[in-house]
């Protein structure tokens, strides 16, 4: 089996007396799209922020591409990118300026050509001279995804990328993501509360609740294991089962 892109071992994060993430361990392998699922406050965002070195773990180990992010932060972050529905891009810059800024931050060679390619791919070429603040949610999502691919990442961390999008735009975004994954072989860690979406695009899912990993497997395996008709019911069973 290939070496994992993400290898998390006994990862714990405590904020005072509150344990947000409690000794979790999981791995993500090259080319996988793994859904990282759980209810609000389960520990998903804290885990992703630890993966990105934005939050310092209390204990445990994170290895990305086989390397400790603390010791190899610059090298590791050069190979990753991130997009979230809840993180804005500077609204008072033009779309092209935003993409150019992030391209420079990653030291992307032939930046103009790269921006042009991504703009074509995401169908945002006509938006490049527009102010970011004037974009609709769907357009902003496509711009965020273009930014997330600016450095040709090997690993993409996507935090609810389709939240707040209408079903049509959300569907187009999912298809784009699948296309990206297929064409570029990117590994994706994906959070979402939309279980239909998870079934559609994820090879495997990891459930986290109250800071602990409660289950994992392919969507089909989990649906079969819990005897339900879809992932939505599996989600409810896992979350509510723990509440009881």
């Amino acid at each position: 089996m290939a070496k994992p892109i993400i290898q998390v071992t006994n990862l714990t994060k405590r904020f005072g007396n509150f344990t947000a993430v409690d000794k979790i361990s999981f791995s993500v392998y090259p080319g996988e799209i793994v859904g990282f699922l759980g209810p609000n406050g389960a520990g998903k965002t804290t885990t992703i922020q630890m993966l990105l070195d934005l939050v310092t773990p209390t204990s445990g180990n994170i290895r990305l591409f086989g390397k400790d992010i603390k010791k190899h932060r610059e090298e590791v972050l050069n190979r990753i990118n991130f997009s979230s529905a809840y993180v804005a891009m500077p609204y008072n810059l033009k779309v092209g300026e935003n993409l150019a800024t992030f391209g420079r931050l990653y030291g992307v060679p032939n930046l103009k050509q790269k921006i042009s390619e991504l703009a074509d791919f995401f169908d945002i070429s006509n938006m490049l001279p527009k102010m970011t603040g004037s974009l609709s949610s769907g357009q902003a999502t496509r711009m965020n995804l273009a930014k997330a691919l600016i450095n040709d990442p090997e690993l993409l961390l996507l935090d609810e990328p389709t939240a707040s999008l209408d079903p049509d735009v959300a569907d187009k975004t999912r298809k784009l993501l699948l296309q990206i994954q297929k064409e570029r072989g990117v590994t994706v860690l994906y959070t979402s509360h939309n279980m239909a979406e998870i079934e559609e695009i994820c090879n495997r899912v990891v459930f986290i609740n109250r800071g602990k990993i409660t289950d994992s497997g392919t969507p089909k395996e989990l649906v079969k294991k819990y005897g339900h008709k879809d992932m939505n019911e599996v989600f409810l069973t896992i979350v509510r089962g723990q509440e009881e």
Partner: protein
Amino acid sequence: MKIHRITAILIRHLYLYQRSVPRLMDIFFWPVTELLVWGFLSAYLEKAGFGGANVVTILLGALIFWDLFSQSQRAVSVVFLEDVWERNLLNIFVTPLKVSEFLVSTVLIGLVRIILVGITIGIFAFFLYQFNLFVFGFSLIPFVLSLLLFGWAIGLFATAIILRFGTSAQVLAFGFTFLLQPFSAVFYPVSALPQWAKNISYFLPTTHVFEGMRQVINTGTFPWGTLLASFGTNLVFIILILWFFYAMFADVKEKGRLMKLD
């Protein structure tokens, strides 16, 4: 340190300046307004025979120096706040950008700002009050450099406080220098201060800069001791503030507050 990441942050802020009226006003309009007020006052004092022949030079010189110091401080703090206001901090800090590169870029942005402010008010002071900033040759340049360093350090301190206490502390980005002004002997000599205030003032690099500036203007001699005192106190402040900033940054990462600053 990678130059491309430093220039990325620098260019990102230059994009903003080229189309933002409030930012341009901060560089071109407000300093000139302040210059007009102090210029008219100085001219009046000179005509009325108060303060001696050098009153215009001393007051306008002090005003210009103080503006450069304030701009240097504000530039550093506001660069950070721009990303907080735009909820862009996460995007910035998930790139390989290092904190040290971010800090260097803020210094460069501050430098661009003060060059623009310096040129603008230098030109206005020359044409309105026949005040030539360069009449003292290069003897004031080391003092300006010392001021800029202190402005940068204070800007960093304000940023560290904002990191720790959130945007409710952002008023510091705009007003912190005013807390130091009474003790910095900007428009009056240190001897005019009461003893308790003198004791505070000697710890501030700004005090030595303004004392030195007045000595250059009044006597034409270069006060090496005052310059050394300004750089010496600056060094202490810079070391302490850098330590404080990195400690606050580590604390924010420990407590997961970086994304909650918005």
